[in-house]
């Protein structure tokens, strides 16, 4: 291997990916820079929240060493998130990357191949450190200033913190792929990666404002939990790093070195474990994968259930039900997302003392607009290339959309029913109020499913690898805008028509409104379907 040439090639790959250079083939623009910008925004938000948290700890009299335990907890969370990202990237880069065949055919040793792919994985796995680890240290330093020399420790500490889960992730991925097919593992891990980021965001938006509310002060239990060393701290690399920063903040260079030295050792051991696992199992895993692509069919599936009538609607319902229930990553994601959408209004509710019925209505509205994206928009790219049958078969686009809308409603309605029942029970809503809420929520669901179908038809990417990113980036941004617009619109309407009102017009108005507006996305989706081309 000519190292300089290979390094130059990898550098060009990374540069072209980041700068969205376009070749003659008119490929899609890479959103790497936009993703980087979004990550920096998220890092800024998390950093400001954590700075407030450490300021509260300092105000409560926590020493630098005690506050370092909170830092250790945050870094441990970042490492756990990193482990999920690393598992995903290890599967993606070591076993499914498009250049893997080329590299395998080249006269490279397994160690060299592993090294190259780990370098590829570095920028892709850095997200948890960028959006949680680095803001945590910055937040700590804002309350407990670090001397200049301590900042020099930051790059090596973060490099070791990155290497430890990466090594473990690679080793674990090798074993994981003996149990789960690579593509499914990749989709599931991509999903976990995104959910991890979502949880970080929810914690930042929901938990931190409560912990750092100056009026309320830091709860005693939270203070104790954050400043007490957990039992596993002695074995936690995150806590070693945090204690190192704690010692640095206390002006103790020797103490810092004592705490940070084991980190380096752990990183080396972890990378060695990765190299050992890859040396023993990577080639076999890649060969198994290659054999699977061109090899034998899966066995042991249930025979088909016989249907009674040849109806497009029935066939679409059966197909979508099978596709969803057989893809537990997407099904799990829909259910998790449904819970998160429902809980979203709680982020601000206690701060604004919202009445129960209003909160229940807002939670259900958040869920319904969310289901439009979670179920309807994703159900279209979920079909992948199978969607081409809408152009091959003698089915009018309008009929196809009607069947699809019914199929997505069949998935969304049970979720809505369960959540509604929970909220009615939880908030003890009287029947009249429940009816008024449903009169608003059901039309909202109809409209959100129609809008979701349109975004799926217009922006769906049939070659998605992450179940949370089945639309193009432009599609996801537009879908987010539509979600906000819908939620705002329905909330305004709800405010104009107070819950509990039985006036016919107010009950019927959302339905009329939703039906009128739904025509627009449905017509646009039908037009797109009838003009869409399948070039490759």
């Amino acid at each position: 291997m000519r190292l300089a040439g290979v390094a130059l090639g990898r550098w060009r790959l990374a540069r072209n990916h980041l700068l969205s250079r376009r070749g003659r083939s008119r490929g899609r623009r890479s959103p790497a820079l936009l993703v980087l910008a979004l990550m920096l925004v998220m890092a800024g938000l998390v950093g400001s929240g954590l700075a407030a948290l450490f300021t509260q700890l300092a105000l409560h009299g926590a020493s630098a060493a005690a506050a370092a335990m909170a830092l250790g907890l945050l870094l441990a969370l970042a490492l756990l998130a990193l482990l999920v990202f690393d598992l995903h990237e290890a599967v993606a880069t070591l076993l499914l990357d498009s250049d893997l065949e080329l590299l395998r055919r080249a006269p490279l040793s397994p160690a060299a191949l592993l090294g190259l792919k780990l370098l590829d994985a570095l920028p892709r796995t850095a997200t948890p450190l960028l959006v949680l680890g680095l803001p945590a240290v910055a937040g700590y330093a804002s309350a407990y200033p670090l001397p200049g020399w301590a900042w020099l420790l930051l790059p090596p500490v973060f490099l070791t913190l990155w290497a430890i889960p990466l090594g473990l992730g690679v080793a674990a991925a090798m074993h994981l792929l003996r149990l789960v097919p690579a593509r499914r593992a990749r989709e599931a891990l991509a999903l976990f990666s995104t959910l991890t980021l979502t949880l970080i965001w929810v914690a930042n938006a929901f938990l931190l404002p409560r912990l750092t509310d100056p009026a309320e002060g830091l709860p005693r239990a939270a203070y104790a939990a954050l400043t007490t060393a957990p039992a596993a701290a002695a074995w936690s690399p995150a806590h070693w790093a945090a204690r190192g920063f704690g010692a640095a903040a206390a002006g103790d260079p020797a103490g810092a070195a004592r705490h940070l030295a084991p980190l380096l050792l752990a990183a080396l051991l972890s990378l060695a474990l990765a190299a050992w696992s890859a040396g023993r199992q990577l080639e076999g895993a890649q060969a198994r994968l290659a054999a699977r692509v061109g090899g034998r069919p899966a066995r042991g599936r249930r025979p088909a259930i016989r249907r009674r009538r040849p109806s497009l609607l029935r066939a679409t319902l059966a197909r979508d039900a099978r596709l969803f229930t057989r893809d537990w990553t997407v099904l799990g994601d829909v259910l998790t997302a449904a819970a998160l959408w429902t809980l979203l209004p709680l982020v601000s509710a206690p701060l604004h003392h919202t009445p129960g019925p209003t909160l229940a209505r807002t939670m259900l509205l958040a869920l319904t607009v969310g289901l439009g994206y979670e179920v309807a928009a994703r159900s279209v790219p979920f079909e992948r290339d199978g969607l081409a049958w809408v152009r091959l078969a003698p089915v009018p686009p309008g009929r196809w959309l009607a069947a699809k809308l019914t199929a997505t409603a069949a998935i969304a309605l049970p979720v809505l029913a369960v959540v509604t029942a929970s909220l009615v029970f939880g908030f003890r809503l009287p029947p009249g109020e429940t009816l008024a809420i449903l009169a608003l929520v059901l039309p909202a669901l109809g409209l959100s499913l129609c809008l979701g179908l349109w975004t799926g038809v217009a922006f769906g990417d049939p070659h998605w690898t992450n179940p949370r990113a089945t639309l193009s980036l432009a599609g996801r941004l537009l879908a987010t805008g539509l979600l906000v617009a819908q939620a705002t619109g329905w909330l305004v309407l709800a405010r104009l028509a107070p819950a509990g009102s039985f006036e016919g017009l107010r009950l019927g108005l959302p339905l009329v409104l939703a039906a009128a507006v739904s025509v627009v996305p449905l017509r646009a989706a039908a037009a797109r379907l009838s003009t869409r081309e399948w070039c490759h």
Partner: protein
Amino acid sequence: MSEPPLRVRGLTRRYGELTAVDGLSLEVRAGEILGFLGPNGAGKSTTLRACAGLLRPDAGDILIAGASLAAAPLRARALMGFVPDRPFLYERLSAREFLDFVGALYGLAPDACAARAAALLARLDLVEAADDLIEGCSLGMRQKVSVAAALLHDPPLVMLDEPLQGLDPRAARALKDLLRERAAGGGGVLVSTHLLDVAERMCDRVVILHRGQKVAEGSLEELRGASGLEASGAPATLEDVFLELTREEAAEGGR
């Protein structure tokens, strides 16, 4: 006289500056297998996709058994079956479930659909794998599922884009026999392939496409005559004819 299974008149399709297919006219007659040949990038797949309704032509008419693809798309689509080079399948359905779904799309009665699917699965040696998820199938098995889906509604026209890729010799023979039987039954078959020896043995006529334009059309004997190889006295294969015709065309283009 009844309409031919496929009639294409003046088909043109552009991708930006590039004219992929340029004023192409061809006809697939009832009871024949028409081979569609051409070098890489000649416009074969574009033509087939346009005839299947997956691409919109910039100019020209496409009639499927007399039904205009532009004016009566639903009727035209009901009269054809298409096997793309990369199959359009649902990975997490089994072959049998997929055929059930396709049958419903074409409005087949359930019993007829089940019987037809069973016959095609047996014919293509897919019975054992019929209830396995397609995601676990090999390339050849996926291709066979795609063929079964295209033939399920028994259309008068079947178009296949590189149908033999990934098939083992037994499966390739089964497919060739199946297509021969369809032609013998009065259907029309349009096959795009790179395998010239297969085209030579299987097709009644061939159309050779080069740079988006038809450079030759006819039976092997007619093409031999058109290429001038007959005069040399040596027995010319389709490969010889193909190379000669595309070479001449390339040379003319270069002049």
